């Protein structure tokens, strides 16, 4: 049934991703692929896996962006440009356009926890839902001909056969920097909701009207890298040196 749930789901399970912390190591990309290729539904196939034109299905990808403040300069480490690593997977939108466009009923949003899933036995592989998602969170598996997307590791989070500590999405469990957090965003007292409130968590592309559940924590203001980089420059230039360094500079000049 591809109409969205009539009443808001009681729980809104989702991810909070900390852009201040992600180091862009792509560990979550690999652990996601590893878990999900053997988990829910068809395997995540690769095309031409050992060739030059290798490509494959991924449910989570990490992009890297360079952000340049107005009038800012790009001067290697010393400039004002910032690199932000940006992991992206399905945001389990409240108003998921991918769900309502699906002609078969394969795409649906769960009433109990808000997870957006594809029933692969019903999917005809028309690809329309991937067009409808503004975030690029859905990829057709070219071998199976069905649509794949992040399941929020629905086969882990409720799985009583694995240890409790592992009952979180694979990416969250794996992240060595602890940039990914999982929880109920409908509960204002949950750890993730408190984090979002404290750090001013944001929605991606709010103008698309999708009301994503997943939130992103913006990078904190940059610590004055400028101060450090001036010192680096000083090492080449002793003009402003005072005290002991001025004396040392003088001695070394004379030798």
């Amino acid at each position, binding site marked *: *049934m*591809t*109409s969205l749930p009539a009443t808001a789901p009681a729980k809104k399970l989702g991810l909070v991703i900390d*852009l201040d912390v992600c180091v862009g190591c792509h560990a979550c*990309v690999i652990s996601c692929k590893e878990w999900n290729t053997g988990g829910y539904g068809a395997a995540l196939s690769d095309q031409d896996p050992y060739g030059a*034109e290798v*490509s494959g*299905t991924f449910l989570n*990808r*990490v*992009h*890297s*962006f*360079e*952000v*340049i*403040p*107005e009038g*800012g300069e790009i001067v290697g480490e010393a400039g*004002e440009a910032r*690199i*932000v690593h*940006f992991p992206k997977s399905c945001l389990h939108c409240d108003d998921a*356009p991918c*769900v*309502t*466009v*699906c*002609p*078969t*009923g394969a795409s649906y949003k769960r009433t109990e926890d808000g997870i957006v899933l594809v029933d692969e036995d*019903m*999917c*005809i*592989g*028309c*690809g*329309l839902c*991937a*067009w*409808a998602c*503004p*975030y*690029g969170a859905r*990829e*057709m*598996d*070219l071998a199976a*001909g*069905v649509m794949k997307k992040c399941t929020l590791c629905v086969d882990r989070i409720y799985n009583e056969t694995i240890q409790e500590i592992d009952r979180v999405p694979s990416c969250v469990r794996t992240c060595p920097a602890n940039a990914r957090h999982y929880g109920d965003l409908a509960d204002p007292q949950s750890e993730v909701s408190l984090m979002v409130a404290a750090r001013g968590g*944001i929605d*991606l*592309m*709010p*103008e*698309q*009207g999708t009301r994503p559940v997943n939130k*992103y924590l*913006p*990078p904190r203001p940059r610590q004055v890298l400028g101060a450090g980089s001036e010192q680096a420059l000083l090492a080449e230039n002793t003009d402003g040196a005072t005290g002991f360094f001025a004396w040392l500079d003088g001695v070394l000049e004379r030798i």
Partner: protein
Amino acid sequence: MHPALSIIVFTTLSGLGYGLATALGTGLLDPAATATKAAHLLALALIAAGLMSSTLHLGNPQRAWRAFSQWRSSWLSREGVMAVLTFLPLAASAFLAIFESRYEPALGLAGAALSLVTVYCTAMIYASLKSVQTWHTPLTPLCYLLFALAGGFSLSTFFAAMGGGNLLLSSGLAAFFVCLAWIAKLVWRNRMNTLRPISTPETATGLGFIGKVRLFERPHINDNYLTNEMGFRVARKHAVKLAALSFGLGGIVPVALLLGLLALGAAHPAVAVGVALLAVLSHITGMLVERWLFFAEARHAVMNYYGG
């Protein structure tokens, strides 16, 4: 967006087929004429060929029947349901014309109306996608509807010239719809060319508060499903040339030929057939280019994450 051949062929052929069915549904052609009977068959064949081609790009076509189930929310499902519903009056009208040389106005008009509703559903599949801003306008279904009528009445002019009925009325209507369709399309193009994107790399990443956002590294060095499907770009200079080509072949040439038919009158039936056929072929060629551009020039919001 990637201009997939199967979808271009589908929208062009089914548009022509439903347009011709609409023209036939108005009773424009004489049901007793052999040409009219052939026109009925051609309309059904074009619609069927279009629908077949649309299933070619499915990953699991054997389950295509499931696509009839979600008409409450999905325009693609609505299109499928309407295509089946429309087939009933069209087939019945074709049966009456072919075997009984009769035109039944109620049946014909119902078929015409349903044909247009089906074309509207097809267009709404694209127009309903907020993620593709170029398409997300009521002008999109307007263009699809007018182009269906333009192609349909051009075809009916050819069959009228073949002895199916009133050549002057048909070619006049065809010229009228071709002109209207291109006016709508030029307004659509103008909107596209002056659009301010609602989504940008800044809104896509939420990093706009720091400054200007530029892609530094893609997630993977090679292309993926998303960049293949949605990252298609056509060089601006080529797009301008192709747009002019589609306007010339799909608009100017057919209108000139159709007006020529009006001037020619019923004097030279053989010449009229040739001129009408040329108008139709030119229009179809122009439409294929127009549909190719419809996809090739559309930018998807996801490209904000891929530097495109």
